[in-house]
């Protein structure tokens, strides 16, 4: 497992994180691999982990009645996904599926939740990092709404 330490230390998401926390995180990490079209998680499942994509592509889907699966986002090398291990009720909000063979690091969020409760400095450090990811996704979603509005006006 300790061979994962350099990867975590170099990953943007964990940049500047205290070494003692990186060692702790390594203990919660495992390598996983998903085959093309493999479902990683479905909406409503317990969210007990998050992932760092090492190589590959994952799509985020919403199942729409009448339309079927609608892809709303793709994630690729270096992306982090799964923030609901931190936020009650700890459920996945969308479906996640591998587009191609994907290697990732799965982090045990259930275990980390306990550690964050015990050590608020760790909790703060992780919350800060997830806030940045979520803030950027919210910004991009709002820009996408603006694009929809501009396109809608063109269509009128």
């Amino acid at each position: 497992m300790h061979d994962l330490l350099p990867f975590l230390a170099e990953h943007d998401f964990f940049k500047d994180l205290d070494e003692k926390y990186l060692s702790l995180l390594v203990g919660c990490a495992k390598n996983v691999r998903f085959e093309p079209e493999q479902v990683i998680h479905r909406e409503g499942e317990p969210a007990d982990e998050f992932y760092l994509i090492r190589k590959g592509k994952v799509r985020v889907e919403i199942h729409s009645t009448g339309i079927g699966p609608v892809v709303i986002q793709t994630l690729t090398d270096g992306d982090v996904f799964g923030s609901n291990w931190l936020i009650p009720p700890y459920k996945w909000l969308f479906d996640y599926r591998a587009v191609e063979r994907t290697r990732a690091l799965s982090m045990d969020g259930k275990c980390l939740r306990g550690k964050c409760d015990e050590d608020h400095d760790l909790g703060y450090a992780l919350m800060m990092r997830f806030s940045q990811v979520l803030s950027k996704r919210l910004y991009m979603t709002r820009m996408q709404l603006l694009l929809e509005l501009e396109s809608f006006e063109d269509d009128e």
Partner: protein
Amino acid sequence: MTVSKVEKETRGTFTLELDPGESGFPFLPGQFNMLYVFGNGEVPISISGDPERPDILVHTVRAVGKVSKALCRLRPGDVLGVRGPYGSSWPVDACRERDILFVTGGLGLAPLRPAVFHIFNHRRDYGKVILLYGARSPDRLLYTKELETWSRALRVEPAVGSAGPDWKGHVGIVTNFIARMDCDPAQTKAMICSSESMMRSMISELNLLGIPDREIHLTLERNMKCGLGLCGHCQLGPTFVCKNGPVYSYDRVKELLAKREL
């Protein structure tokens, strides 16, 4: 000039090919023409063809207003008025031996297309070339056959706002993927085209990558009327978009674009 061909690109978007006659119609990538539909009026439209094919003058038009709707109703054999070419151009010659990152969405590919053609035609003169191109959905992507052809020599990265499960490209707005393009900021020139709000977002991401303002070029859309810098309709502070633009390096217009009153 006479319309020689009309091709539907996507819903409400058409590409018109015009016959410029024996003298041809030389232009630089990024320049525009004023197109006049008799009895309807005149609008500025970017030239979107191959600059090395002056025998065919190409414009891609989206039917949004009275004149553009009239343009989209034209059929082969119809005649329209053409004034131009006007304005500044993409710095394709100044980019030789550099890496190029094109970032655009929707109809924004039309003004960039001549620059992409130029680079595709002179591929050996350039370093790594990436075209990051977005649309609302896969059926809204323009020039899909060309995207496939270009992908043999350039890295073409299509992104759509949403898609069905059979889509293999990116999903999300193009801005989201700029950081994933593995650009060398010291070597890269960026050329972008979108709405101003979207371009601010793109520029912010390009700056985060380390690409400075002077290496980012963009094309502006303002209310261009005369095409000669005389009437003042397209004035942006001290510059006239029709004459000094529409293509600018971002460091030249950064302060002006930040002023909401302009």
